[in-house]
């Protein structure tokens, strides 16, 4: 059973994530000709075992994910996940190409990787800024499958938690649900909470 997380810590975490998402939206707008709006995200914290019940719009549908793994001060994996048809629609909208089919070819996968890279870096950058510790990251990689399959190979000792960040990507006339899923070991999550507590202590 997960210990009760102080609501103020969760609020600070939400705020950090929100800043990261905002930064990502700014970069996407500068890079693309399309106007990209990322809605204020909904943040939830769940146990790894509950993952398949979450991300409702993805359950059972083919999904596409961009993922970065990391280790060092904290260990885990962060992925941006879309249903594949939504991912294709998003890439067409961002590149300004006419919609052809709800699938991704190799070039589109690379484009999605850049979009995922920007969003994940936004969130991880915000968290990294408060940690000020050494973390090593893998280059982003593209996966397709189902939500529960994305983290199957991630090896983390002990209890695993997932921070689910649900945001809506609005580009041109389309809007697509995207989920940033941050899989962490409980000890890594505690380290983040501890830094947040320090931050709150400094602020008060």
């Amino acid at each position: 059973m997960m210990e009760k997380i102080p609501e103020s810590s969760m609020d600070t975490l939400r705020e950090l994530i929100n800043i990261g998402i905002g930064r990502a939206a700014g970069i996407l707008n500068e890079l693309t000709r399309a106007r990209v709006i990322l809605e204020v995200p909904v943040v939830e914290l769940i146990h790894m075992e509950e993952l398949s019940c979450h991300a409702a719009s993805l359950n059972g549908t083919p999904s596409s994910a961009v993922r970065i793994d990391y280790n060092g001060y904290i260990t885990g994996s962060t992925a941006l996940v879309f249903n594949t048809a939504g991912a294709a629609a998003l890439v067409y909208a961002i590149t300004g190409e006419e919609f052809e089919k709800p699938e991704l070819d190799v070039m589109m996968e690379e484009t999605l990787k850049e979009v995922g890279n920007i969003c994940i870096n936004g969130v991880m950058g915000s968290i990294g800024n408060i940690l000020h510790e050494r973390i090593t990251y893998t280059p982003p990689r593209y996966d397709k499958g189902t939500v529960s399959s994305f983290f199957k190979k991630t090896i983390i000792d002990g209890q695993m938690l997932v921070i689910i960040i649900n945001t809506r990507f609005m580009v041109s006339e389309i809007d697509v649900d995207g989920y940033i899923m941050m899989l962490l070991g409980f000890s890594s999550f505690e380290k983040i909470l501890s830094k947040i507590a320090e931050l709150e202590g400094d602020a008060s």
Partner: protein
Amino acid sequence: MTGIPGNTIWKNLEYLPLGICIIDRDYTVHFWNSCMEQWTRKGKGELTGTDLRDHFTRIKRTAFQDRLGSIFTGSPPIIFSSQIHAYIFDAPLPDGMMRKQQTTVLPLEHPSGYYAMFVCEDVTSLTEEIQAYREMKNTALIELEKRERAEYNLRVANEDLLAYISEATVRLKTPVSLIEENLREILREVELGNGDMEEMIIIMKLQIQVAATVVENLRELNDAIIAGKREIPVAYRNMIQE
């Protein structure tokens, strides 16, 4: 190559079939491999120790530098996809077009600070192949759509033609039945031996007229089918013209 400790490891990157460039946080070039030399037509001597931004205009862009800045603090690697950026390094092909590039920038940790390593992949051929495949697929889909429409039109035309022939048959059946009935009547009268020759001649003349009308109707139907007259159903006529 500059005198940064550990650069012997970088030597191993010299002959990779990927463009490799390593810079420090001031954008000073410390490593430029032979693939980069070949693609950009700029040699190591020209690049090493100089500011990368002085050689490649796209690297001067604020949006690019804003993203790259985090690499020097050890952030996650950064990807620049070919669909969004087309290319980062000006690397002309013989026809003057620039090579399409997919670039990943990785932070390289060193005691003196982080360096940024650009790993650049030429995806020109891949892009062209995907474009060609897309065009081929689109053409095939358009042809398939045309064929499905033509098949549908043919089906509709056949149904209309059958309905038209059925209607024409009904129109012809009435006078032919009348001829048959009248000829049977004449035969019956002759067999009974009570036929009035004058009356039979009148009836037979009438049958000849009716038969002539039937023949005329059949000829008109034949002409209509061959010449595509108005009487032929529109869908069938359109199909013949197509």
